[in-house]
Structure formats: structure tokens, C-alpha cells
């Protein structure tokens, strides 16, 4: 009994939300019809809450590569990267990613979450300091706990606040690990990476950038925000995922550091879990080739993102601070968020609902994710659905200044 007592508050909250008969956190998608269309119950919906940025989940070449690997190498590796779970294809993918990312070393993990745990949680031990952006993803916080590092947060996207905290550390700043993200998953805003890199150059420390939402999305070649801003040389470690623009599952770390390879022998989330299945690895390798061969996918993604962002902002919704493939719409209370989310489903649009405390500003939000695979007509239908719900919003959630400015999770 006592073990479960800690969930009593959670149970109450869930019961309160569940009175409406809705469960946005247990949605069953009954059928996936394409990268952008699914079926929930008897309703066909536009999928606008995936991370399928380039729409590659149904790319014929990726599917064929996955099927071929499934037939030739079987359904799973049944073992750790360190033991029997490193096939030729895992190693080949690492080499291809190293070439793509222009980094000496790439290590593939079984998920993006595990990549963060495996890198941050192994590099930063109890005597090390990690300075992280306050809005960093839960996997980064969890990674710090795994390694027992001393964690100091700085205000979201505030390079001056980072500098102030580094200065407090004195000489210890030179050894610390600074962690930021390329694109933040809640509001779709980017890190001021040029300014952060400048602070890092001056005061020291290592810089790790989680480009989970920005690989394939930003940069002339799709290497992420650091490439876009021309500061790749200042970034010591890049973390990425296969479960967004590359359309499968898995994660990776890329670095120029000569000792990075040693993590393979020290990183528990690398050693003590099974490696990605051959089919996943094969489809990621194919997706990586498509990503490089078809930059027009990135252009289409951004055209769609701009259109949806402008459309929603034009309706007077409070959105994230800049156009992005992740477009957050702030809504107000949890109940208002729930009702809004369900109404969107009823209108044939699936988005993600996020409730506080996971949201900046303590408000419920719905998060739209744009894909290169969305047609112009689908984007218009999403905007129309939001337009129909516009009048239901409480006055507080609709303001003249449509952009939310975050300054930490106040």
C-alpha cells in the first residue's frame, strides 16, 4: 500500500480530469493511414501532434530497407551493444552519422532518452557541475540524477543568466557541462546558441546541445541549430534522436572529443539495455540518405510551419515566441485545455495536450507539430478547426500580444 500512497494526488487529479470521460494521455490511435492521417475510434484525424518532421515514416525506401533488414537479420538483436547487439548495420550507421554530423565519434543508443542518460549521466558524476537551461527536457534532468551531478539551472534562453551563474562558480566553471537544446519541445523556441557559445568560450566549460528537434530541421545540411548559427566548433557534444525527423526510434551522441569512445565501456544505458532492432537501424540509415538527398523536404516543412504559425497567430491565439515546426498554443486551465483538445479531435485534428507543471507559465497548452508531409490543404484544415474554436476561448487566453515570452518556468 505505502508504495502507491505517493500517487494519491495524481489519482485525484486524474479522476477530476477523467470525469469528462476523456483521457488525452491515453489516446488510442486505431489506425495510421499515412504520416499525417490516422483514425481514432470512428473518426479520421489529421495528425498534427507527431514529431514526424520530414514525414519519412512512410517513405517507400525507408520501409523497404526496414523490411529487408527484418527478413535478413531478424526481429531483434536480443542483446546489448556491448555484447551481441552490435551488428554491422549499427556500426555502419555510426560511421554514416559521423560523416553527416562531421564529428569524429558517434555512439548509437536505443532511444533519445537513453542517449541523454548515457552521455550526461556518465560524464557528469557527483563532483561535476551541470548548468542546464531551466526548460530542458526531462531526460536531461533524469540524466543528471543518474550520474549524481550537481545541477544548477539558468533562466530559459538567457545567456546573461548563464554567465552570472558561471561567474559564481569561479575556477570550477572551466570544468562544468553546459546543456541546452536546439529547439525546445514545449514552445518551439530556439536556444540563443551564438550568445551561449560566446559565454562558454570566455568562461569555460563543455557545451552539449540536444538537437533532438532540430536535426533534419535546421541548418543548411540539416545538422541542427549549431550548423544554422555557425557555432558547431563550440559545441563539444551533440545529442540527437531517430524518433523525430528520421522517423524511427533510437538516439545518438556525436563528438570530436578523442575520449568519447570510452563511453561505450562506462555508459550504463548503453551497456545494460538491448540495442535497436535491425529494422529500425536500416530505416534510419535510409532516412539519413533521404534527408541529405532531398533538402526540399526541409523547405516544405518550414513553409508549412510558417503558414500554420501565421494562421494561428492571425486568429489571435497565444503561440510560442517564433515560427517553428513545434507550434504551441496556450490555453489557460487544465479543464479548458482538455475541452479544447477534445473539440479539435471532434473537428478531425489530433494535437498533443500538455498540462502544468510540464508547461512553461503554468498554463495548459496544445502543441501542434508540423510535417513536410502535410499538404497545404491539411494545414488550412487545421487552421479552420482552430478558427471554429476561437470563440470558445476564455478572454485570458486570447490577447492582442499573441506571443508568449518565457523567462524561466515561472
Amino acid at each position, binding site marked *: 500500500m505505502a508504495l502507491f500512497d505517493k500517487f494519491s494526488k495524481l489519482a485525484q487529479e486524474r479522476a477530476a480530469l477523467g470525469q469528462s470521460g476523456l483521457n488525452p494521455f491515453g489516446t488510442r490511435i486505431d489506425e495510421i493511414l499515412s504520416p499525417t492521417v490516422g483514425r481514432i475510434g470512428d473518426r479520421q484525424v489529421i495528425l498534427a501532434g507527431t514529431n514526424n518532421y520530414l514525414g519519412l515514416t512512410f517513405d517507400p525506401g525507408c520501409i523497404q530497407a526496414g523490411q529487408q533488414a527484418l527478413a535478413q537479420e531478424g526481429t531483434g538483436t536480443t542483446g546489448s551493444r556491448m555484447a551481441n547487439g552490435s551488428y554491422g548495420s549499427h556500426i555502419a550507421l555510426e560511421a554514416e552519422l559521423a560523416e553527416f554530423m562531421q564529428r569524429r565519434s558517434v555512439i548509437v543508443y536505443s532511444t533519445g532518452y537513453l542517449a541523454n542518460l548515457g552521455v550526461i549521466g556518465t560524464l557528469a558524476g557527483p563532483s561535476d557541475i551541470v548548468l542546464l537551461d531551466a526548460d530542458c527536457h526531462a531526460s536531461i534532468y533524469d540524466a543528471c540524477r543518474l550520474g549524481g551531478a550537481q545541477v544548477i539551472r539558468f533562466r530559459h534562453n538567457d545567456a546573461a543568466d548563464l554567465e*552570472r551563474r558561471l561567474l559564481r562558480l569561479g575556477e570550477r566553471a572551466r570544468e562544468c557541462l553546459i546543456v541546452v537544446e536546439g529547439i525546445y519541445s514545449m514552445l518551439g523556441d530556439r536556444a540563443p546558441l551564438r550568445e551561449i557559445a560566446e559565454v562558454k568560450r570566455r568562461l569555460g566549460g563543455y557545451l552539449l546541445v540536444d538537437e533532438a528537434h532540430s536535426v533534419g530541421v535546421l541548418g543548411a545540411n540539416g545538422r541542427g541549430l549549431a550548423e544554422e548559427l555557425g557555432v558547431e566548433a563550440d559545441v563539444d557534444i551533440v545529442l540527437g534522436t531517430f524518433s523525430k525527423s528520421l522517423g524511427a526510434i533510437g538516439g545518438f551522441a556525436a563528438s570530436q572529443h578523442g575520449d568519447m569512445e570510452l563511453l561505450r565501456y562506462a555508459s550504463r544505458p548503453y551497456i545494460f539495455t538491448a540495442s535497436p532492432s535491425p529494422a529500425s537501424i536500416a530505416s534510419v540509415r535510409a532516412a539519413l540518405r533521404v534527408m541529405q538527398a532531398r533538402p526540399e523536404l526541409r523547405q516544405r516543412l518550414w513553409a508549412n510551419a510558417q503558414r500554420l504559425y501565421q494562421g494561428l497567430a492571425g486568429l489571435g491565439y497565444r503561440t510560442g515566441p517564433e515560427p517553428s515546426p513545434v507550434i504551441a498554443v496556450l490555453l489557460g486551465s487544465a479543464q479548458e485545455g482538455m475541452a479544447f483538445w477534445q473539440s479539435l479531435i471532434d473537428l478531425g485534428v489530433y494535437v498533443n495536450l500538455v498540462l502544468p507543471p510540464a508547461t512553461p507559465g503554468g498554463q495548459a497548452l496544445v502543441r501542434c507539430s508540423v510535417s513536410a508531409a502535410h499538404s497545404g490543404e491539411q494545414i488550412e484544415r487545421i487552421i479552420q478547426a482552430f478558427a471554429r474554436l476561437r470563440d470558445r476561448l476564455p478572454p485570458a487566453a486570447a490577447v492582442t500580444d499573441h506571443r508568449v515570452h518565457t523567462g*524561466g518556468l515561472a
Partner: protein
Amino acid sequence: MKAEGLLMIAEQQILERLLFQIRRLAPPGTEVRPDIALVDELGLDSMKVMDLLMELEDEFDISIPLNVLTDVRTPAQLAQAVFTLMEHADGAVR
């Protein structure tokens, strides 16, 4: 004795500043006592508590790792943790 007295005053001052900050976060009308549980009784979520630490870092100009929260339930315990960090920061209490 005199030094000990000064230390006690310093810790008391930290607690008072801390209570001031917490009152701004607590639901209106709640009595914020030094021994109230920040999460279980006051209902502060993890984000609010972490943001509070950031405010305290700036207020006292010290680094407060999130790790201190492992052993902290109440404002009094947090004040004690901050006090200890200030002692160790430069060997003197400011």
C-alpha cells in the same frame, strides 16, 4: 558565543527572506510556517520549487545545486541548506 550568535542571526535572516519568497508562490491566504511541507502541504510543484532555488541563488549570490532538495521538505530545512552552502562558499557568512 558571540560568533555563534551571529550565525544564528544569519540563518534567521535567510529563513525570513525565504519565507517572503515562498509566500509569493503559495496560494493566497495560506499560512507559510517554517515547518510547513513545501510540496505536500503548500502544494508547490517541482518547477516552482526549482524556480525558488534560482531566485535564492540570485538573492544570496551563491550557487545552490538542485541536489539540496533531496533532503529538504520545509522552508526551515531549505534555509539550513542555504546557510550551510554560504558557510562553505567562502568560509565566512556574509
